Structures are given as C-alpha cells and as structure tokens.
C-alpha cells in the first residue's frame, strides 16, 4: 500500500455507473475522501445512493476506478475485504418484523463476525443505549415507529466499530432532539473512523462535516469545506421586502417571513434595482441553492 492510499482512505477516479435501463447515475466522478465526517448532498436523483452503494460493495461500477482502504471494488475479493470493516445503513432499511430490536442487532453482530455471545451482548446493550432504544429493545420491530426503526438501523451500522461508516440519510424521520443527539454520536465516531453521510438536511452537514461534496445529475458540482460552499454565495444573498408579490426573474427564494406590512423574502441571485434589496450574510443552504441555480442555468 502506498502512502497516498493510506492517507486517502477512498479514491475514486473517472467513476461511472449506468443502470440496466440506461440511466447514467454517475458520470465520471473524481473524489478523494480521508478520515473524518464527509457529507454528500444534492437533489433527489443526483446519484448519492448509487455512489454509496458502490462504496459499500453492493454494486459494481460500470467504468472507472474505486478503491476503499486500498481495495479495488471491481474485484470480488476487494469488495469482500471492505465488508470486513464496514458499517452501512441503506436509505430504505428493512428489518425482520418478527424479531425484537435486540435480536436483530444480535443477528447482524453474528454476521459481522463477533463470535463471543458475551461480547455481542455488551455491544448490543451499549448501542441500544446510544440510540436510546433500551426501553423498547425487547419489543418486536413490527411495533416500532419509523424513527425507532431508523435508530435501530443506525445502531446496526455501528456494530463491531467499523473503519468505514456509510450512512444514507440517517436522520430522515428523526425528531429534532434525536437528530441533534445523533449528530453528536456520529461526530464522536468520526474521530475514530471515516464517516460518509448523505442527507437533505443541510443543518446536519453544517454542524458536523468538515468536508462535503455537492452532487448534481451524477456529477460533483462542488467539493470542499462547508465554509467554502458558504463563501460561494457571498454577495449573492439578499433580503427583499415586498407588499406580497413574490420576486421572480431568476431569483431563488430560500425563505419567507410574513410581516405586518408585507412579506420579507430571502433570495439567492442578482435582484433588479427596484427591489431595494439588502445584502445579507449567506448560510450553507444559500451556498447549496446558489450552486444548483448556476448548474441549472449552465445546463439550459
């Protein structure tokens, strides 16, 4: 293993994936991911799940190179080697409805190769506590709420302290309190391993990721730190107050606030002079919207 491969835990070069139906979900992606927490964001259908499934060894790339911790994902043996130290949470996780939460965790722990039942018990107990499912641990999964199932899914991904944790929309369906808690848990994990997470909740990224990629139509639109993405929108975010009519012509409305004498809009773009717009400090969400806006303009 060369030094380069050791520092870059994940190396992706010219990676493409075309589904049998002809959909090109990934289009010649180049990406390097090191330790820490890495965020993947992008609109629906951008290719986030496809990329994550390839990295988890569930799917072969059509073209290009993908290496995880030095293992080539084109080879069956490479994929097998990656799986030995991987935690993965799929976007749509299924759980056997007839097992209890604790039994399901135990089952996955066995498959991950933890042979000692004492050690399994210890890890399951501790993870159930981490995701706050201890109270319902001995109830059948079919009686769980959506958020409980999601948390059980996160717990199974963290079994056996993986070196690479790939989690596809971990916070979808979680209440705000649990989301905040989970962020802390994942940040802790990221000190010891590489965490790749995809999300539609930009706040998750801004609070926990040091590095991110914005995907659009199977390509990487932006790659860098959250603050750099924010910087992209500097000078492009405005506040406009109108008597009610929405400011259009090429502006993207990020948010709106009903006032007594009208409506205050937060917009991204270049407003016309008559709007009397006030420049404001951008957020990560503004950066995201600005980049996508530019990409859509470029496509047209």
């Amino acid at each position, binding site marked *: 293993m060369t030094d380069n491969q050791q520092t870059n835990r994940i190396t992706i070069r010219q990676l493409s994936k075309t589904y049998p139906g002809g959909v090109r979900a990934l289009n010649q992606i180049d990406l390097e991911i090191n330790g820490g927490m890495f965020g993947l964001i992008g609109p629906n259908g951008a290719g986030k799940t496809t990329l994550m499934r390839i990295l988890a060894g569930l799917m072969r790339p059509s073209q290009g190179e993908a290496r995880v911790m030095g293992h080539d994902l084109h080879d069956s043996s490479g994929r097998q080697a990656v799986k030995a130290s991987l935690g993965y949470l799929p976007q749509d996780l299924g759980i056997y409805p007839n097992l209890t939460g604790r039994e399901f965790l135990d089952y*996955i722990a066995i*498959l991950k190769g933890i042979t000692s039942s004492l050690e399994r018990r210890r890890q399951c107990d501790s993870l159930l506590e981490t995701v706050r499912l201890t109270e319902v641990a001995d109830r059948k999964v079919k009686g769980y709420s959506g958020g409980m199932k999601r948390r059980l899914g996160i717990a199974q991904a963290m079994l056996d302290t993986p070196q690479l944790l790939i989690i596809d929309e971990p916070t979808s369906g979680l209440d705000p309190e649990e989301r905040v808690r989970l962020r802390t848990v994942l940040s802790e994990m990221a000190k010891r391993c590489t965490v790749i997470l995809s999300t539609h909740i930009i706040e998750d990224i801004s609070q926990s990721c040091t590095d991110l990629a914005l995907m659009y139509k199977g390509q990487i639109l932006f790659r860098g730190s959250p603050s750099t993405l924010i910087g992209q929108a500097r000078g492009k975010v405005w506040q406009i107050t109108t008597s009610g009519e929405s400011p259009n012509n090429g502006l993207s409305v990020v948010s709106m606030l009903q006032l007594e004498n009208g409506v205050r809009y937060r917009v991204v773009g270049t407003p016309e002079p008559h709007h009397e717009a006030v420049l404001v400090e951008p957020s990560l969400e503004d950066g995201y919207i600005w980049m996508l806006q530019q990409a859509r303009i470029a496509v047209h």
Partner: protein
Amino acid sequence: MIVLSQIVGIAFYEFRMHWRRRGLLVVTLGMLGVTLLPIMLVRNELSSDSLLGAEGVQYFTQNVIRIHWAAVGAVLFAVMPFIFADAIPRDRQIGVSEVLHTTPLRPLSYLAGKTLGAWLGTVTCLILTVITSGAAWWIVIAPFDLSVYSAIWISGALPMALINVGLVVLITSVLPNSRTAVLGCVAFVVLLPILVGVEGNGTLIELLNPLRPGLFFYYLQQASPSQPQTLSPEVTILGGTLQLIAAAVGAWLWARFRDGR
C-alpha cells in the same frame, strides 16, 4: 470459526422466525390432526378382545403406518415446501439483504444457514408429530411394532423432508420476492409431478418427482402391497442428495454472479 458461527446464527434465527410466523405451528397441528383423528375413529370400531396377540400387533402396525405415512408424506410433499419457499427471496423483499450483503458473510454460508434453518424447522415439526401421535396410538388403541414405525420416520420421512425442503430453499434463492417464490414452489410441487408422472415408474426420471415415489410408495407398500413399481429407497435418497448438491452449486454460482450487480 466465524463461518460456523454465522451459519449457526442464521439457522437459529431463521428457525425462530419461522415459528413466530406461525406457519410451522399450523403445519404441525395439521399433521397431528390428520394422524390423531383416525385414532378416534378406529377406537369406536374396536371391540376390545377381538384383536390380540401377534396378529393384532401386525394389524395395528399396518394401520398406523398407512395413516401416518400417507398424511405425513403428503404434507412433506405438498405443504412443507411452501412454508420455506421464500426463506431467501423474503430477505430481498423486506430489504434486509442490503444489510446482510454488506457484512463479511459469504454467499455459501448464507445459503447453508438458510437451508439449515429450514431443516431445523422441518425436523422439529416431524419429531413433535412422531412422538405425540405415536404415543396416542400406543396408549389409546394398542401397541404396535416400534422398529417398523421408527424406520419409516428415520429412513422415509426424514430424507424426504430434507431433500424437498432443501431443494426448495436453494432453488428459490434466485427469485426476487415472496410472490415469485410461491410461484416457483407451485412449479416444483404441481408442474414437476405432472411432467414426470405422479406415480413412480422405476426409471431415473422419477427421481425428479417431489413426492419421491421410491420413498413414498415403498413405505406405503409395507401397509398394502398393491403399489406401483418404483426405484428403491436407497436410489431415491442418493438421487435426491445429488439434486441437493447440484442445487447448492447452482445457487452459489448464481449468488457469485449476482454479487455487486
């Protein structure tokens, strides 16, 4: 060590889930029902002192075998495969397989664990039936020849169960969901016997018949000798074992081919 623990783990949880899904329980109760009901009927027709001695034992042995074997054989042939048909497709349908396939679990261990789990379920079901209904005959009606009774279970029902259930689990492993798995099972249980002939004919083609004529009719013959000509039980078991191995190799190759697609 890890491989062994994975196989045993899958088998254990598979077995547990099958009981919780009630299917096995219903089949066990069904088999018990079919075997216990005749006890009541025979009992009523019995005038207590008319049948005693060696003749009586033989008579009851024949009866107990005919009734048990016909019922249990039919269940092992036509019902049991359906219980285990979606053992593997169900994982795909539920979406658990996404997680299973990102663990270090190898395809062969997965297949072995699932098959073993199904076998465990079937054998438990058989043992419950053998003991309960055998004891009921013995106590309620009369003693019978235990050696013949146990031979039928061990060298007739057991191999038939293992071959049929194993084959169904392995063959349906290539199918995408529970619905197609049930259709696949219908093909196995209904179409196959129609194609190769329901009764045995003494040729190798009868080995494909899931009724396993070489076992089913052989043991039925012990009760009434006017049964069709079939292959011997040994050849039937050997043929079934070879089919199991072929199905396992096929399922394994398919899993390797599918890996990462």
